[in-house]
């Protein structure tokens, strides 16, 4: 038996234990079974000064088949747990979408027929619930999502033993960050620092300009909301390979939110922050103040939408965003009601972003 198999065994045993408890509740105790799951969300997210990241609090929820709403949820969780057990027993791997299909069925009689899941969101939630119940991240269930993070630069990865050199000489392409992280290893890192940007379009522009070669950097993007593999890659490069990490996102509340995802974590994944968050990462831009410091032409600025305003106001209220720097930026945004994308620098020429803005910012921060 390999080590991997042992880990699988551990996890399936955890699942069997859950099943047994439920069975015992019904058969032996004669009580409604319940599953106790840590609560996920704002009201159970706690800032840890020591770890400098968001962590999950003590609150739990009881999921049991005791209300009309909970009966389906309870069944969904058990069905998903069983499906994960099967996946592990069969030594296969699946995406979250694959798990949705594997457990798809209909419920009810001819009169009241419903789908077991109303959509993939439901099955994603069930997978999360099993992660929380077993305290095992889903990557260890061999359940992954579709890769969407991208990486470029002097780094060599090993995926299941195959070597992938991301320092592609052509400047023309990037490498997708694999999501099956249990098979993923970083073999070699020659870069001086790691630069994370919000969007793949911006990454492409920077890469094409020769930024990687000039500054000996690794470029990374989560293509919007970063998946777990991307966040873990950033953390690994920073903490295991000791490379400084800088983050650039759009100057709007959503962009700031994404940047902070890397640095402090998120409410919905607060239970997994230890694996995902890079507290040493520096969020360098694009700050709301940059709009005015770099005098972005009016035509390239966007008016804030009501949703933007709401989100900024929400962010201001979060206890973990009381830092002077974030408050100042958010207040500036709420006052001027203007936002800006990194792409706006293209107004000054296609190379301005990579040749002027980014080096300026990096120099200010002492990274180069």
């Amino acid at each position, binding site marked *: 038996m390999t080590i991997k198999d042992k880990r699988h065994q551990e996890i399936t045993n955890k*699942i*069997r234990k859950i*099943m*047994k408890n*439920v*069975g*015992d509740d*019904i*058969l*032996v*105790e*004669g*009580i*409604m079974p319940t599953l106790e799951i840590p609560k996920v969300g704002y009201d159970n997210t706690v800032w840890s000064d020591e770890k400098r990241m968001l962590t999950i609090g003590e609150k739990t929820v009881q999921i049991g*088949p*005791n*209300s*009309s709403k909970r*009966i*389906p949820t*309870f*069944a969904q969780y*058990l*069905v998903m*747990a*069983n499906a994960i*057990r*099967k996946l592990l027993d069969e030594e296969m791997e699946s995406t979250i979408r694959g798990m949705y299909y594997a457990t798809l*069925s209909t*419920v*009810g*009689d001819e009169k*009241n027929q419903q789908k*077991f899941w109303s959509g993939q969101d439901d099955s994603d939630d069930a997978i999360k619930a099993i992660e929380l119940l077993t305290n095992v991240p889903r990557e260890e269930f061999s359940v992954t999502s579709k890769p969407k993070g991208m990486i470029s630069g002097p780094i060599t990865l090993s995926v299941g033993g195959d070597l992938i050199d991301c320092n592609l000489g052509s400047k023309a392409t990037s490498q997708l960050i694999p999501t099956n992280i249990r098979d993923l290893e970083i073999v070699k890192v020659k870069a001086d620092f790691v630069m994370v940007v919000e969007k793949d379009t911006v990454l492409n522009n920077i890469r094409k300009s020769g930024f990687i070669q000039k500054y000996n950097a690794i470029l990374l993007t989560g293509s919007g909301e970063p998946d777990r593999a991307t966040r873990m890659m950033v953390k690994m490069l920073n903490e295991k390979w000791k490379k400084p990490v800088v983050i650039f996102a759009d100057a709007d509340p959503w962009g700031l939110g994404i940047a902070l995802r890397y640095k402090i974590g998120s409410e919905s994944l607060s239970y997994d922050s230890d694996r995902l968050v890079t507290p040493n990462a520096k969020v360098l831009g694009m700050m709301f103040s940059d709009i005015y410091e770099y005098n972005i032409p009016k035509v390239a600025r966007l008016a804030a939408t009501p949703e933007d305003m709401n989100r900024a106001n929400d962010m201001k209220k979060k206890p973990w965003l009381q830092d002077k720097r974030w408050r100042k930026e958010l207040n500036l945004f709420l006052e001027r009601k203007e936002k800006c994308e990194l792409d706006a620098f293209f107004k000054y020429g296609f190379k301005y972003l990579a040749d002027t803005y980014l080096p300026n910012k990096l120099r200010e921060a002492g990274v180069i």
Partner: protein
Amino acid sequence: MTSKVTTEVLEKGTRQTKTILQLPQKHKSKIYYNKKAESEFFVDNSALAGFTGERILYMSVRELIENSLDSCEINHILPVIHLDLKLLDPLNDLWTISCKDNGIGIPSEKVPVAVCSFLTSGKYVEKQQRGLFGVGLKMIAAFSTKDTDHPLKVWSKSEEESEYYFDLRTDIGTNKPITLFKKNVKNDESQIDGNSGFKVQAILRAKLSPVTKNKIYDYISQTSIVNPYAVIVFETDEGKVTFKRRTETMPSPSKEVLPHPSDMDLKTLKKAILNFMNQKTTLQGILSSSFQKMSNEKAKDIINRAGLEAKPADQYDEHELIKVVNICKHTKFQSPNTDHLSPIGEKILTVGMTSEYSIIQNKVTTNSGSQTHLTAKILKPALTAYSSRICVVNNRPTIVECGIAYGGDIPSFRLYRFANKIPLLYDEGSDVAREVISEVGINKMGISKKEVKEQFSNVETKSDRTVEYLPIHIFFHICSTKIPYKTAGKESIASEGDLKKYMKSCLSDLYRKVSAQIRRELKIKEDENKLRLYKHYIPFIVNAISESIKIDTKKLTSAFQILAEKYVGGELSNITKQILPKTDQKRIEPVNKKINTSKRSGNENKLSKFDTRSNISKQSNKISSPKINISRKNRKK
């Protein structure tokens, strides 16, 4: 009448116009002023009476049934009405419509005029009645004359006479009846069964679309709701439906009433004076005996304030009389009487609501194609409630009645509107009742929007009004000497004066009345839903467990089912047994040995405890279930 002359003048006129046209250099035409006969006017403007293309048959059904009901109620006769609607000639769209009742009939010498001459009616009095204008039956006669060569066949028997038969047509140009044939009917040819009655049969040219057909069905079934004391036999080519008499109680008939002085105008005042012509009555006397709420002193005061000198009543000129009218408009009188109105009443409406007939069109497929067959289904609700308000709207006495029928056979929400016992079927969207329903919150029923939407989530309604998710029928009846209709079509009621306020208070009242029962019905529904969920989801849960660990699937399933039954609550044991298969408790033994070897002795203790508990709950089920049954029976009463 000078109508013959009128026609000649008209013809001359046309001829002259033609000659003028031949001489274009003059460019002048003379205008001739002619009088048009009432019948011709109404035929030309048939929309005024609602007789437009699609609706001809619907309006005919309506007018005939309303006449029959009025004719029975005037003498407190329990109505028996036969309505036949059959296709006579599909090629030419000819229909035979006939209606027979056991009402008071019409004296034989009045029959031709009453059937054919427009604006001839026995109903021109200040009184709550269905028909008012003396137009309906005449419209049918005129359309039959206009569109076909068939006579209108009429059988009539009034109490004093024997039965007469008539073949009638209308002279549309003169508004006069043409009696083609009249005879005293012998016993063996008699069409009228009882002491009195009236039957009319007409051939009409009309198209019947499925929409209009449904409106006719709706009209008859809704009429039956507010007239449950009437037998209505409705026969078409598709079958025969009999609405049985469900009560012998009839509402007391409405009475004629004196006008209220706030409604006085020059016309009513002059008419009142005319009535006392040659009787040497003073103006004061005429006022106090012609208007309600007008005492002798009040009349004297008004005349004094108008500054009129005393003289014989017929000597006052219009300039003097208008002063009296103006003073009356500015004087406060007591609210008008309402005792002359004839509401449906709690007893009768409740009978109607608890035995609502619904006409069902069954499609029967035979060799020769599919045919529709009519049947009637009686909807029994789980509960009903009634509330009413007597009020004055724009100086007209008005009674608002509201009823609710909930649950049982009622499948979904529906609003029923009645005005003076006539169902209103069109323009529901603009009716004041719609606004009332939107504006009264269902929280008065003690239930929340959320609960309703959860329990009735499968109901297909696009409305965001929560009440429309409920299986509830809401009935509004407005009765008044003058209904504030929104349009000439008389299909929707306007929100005039305080009418809406009274309707809202009526509906709120009802919501409160039924709140306890609706909550209980909702709870039953909720528990049914919950049990259904258990039934559907237990197999998933059991399967997930038994695939992962070794466990006795059957035992797990039955133990889970018992648990679910217990959980949903003892008072619903009956429903529980229907939905979940009965499980035998004795078969539950200590759990699978393999899992529980370590704590086996403990298990037995726990199990015996578990057994007792379920026995207790079983017993309590037995005690509580009859209570529910009793209360449900009570409700149906």
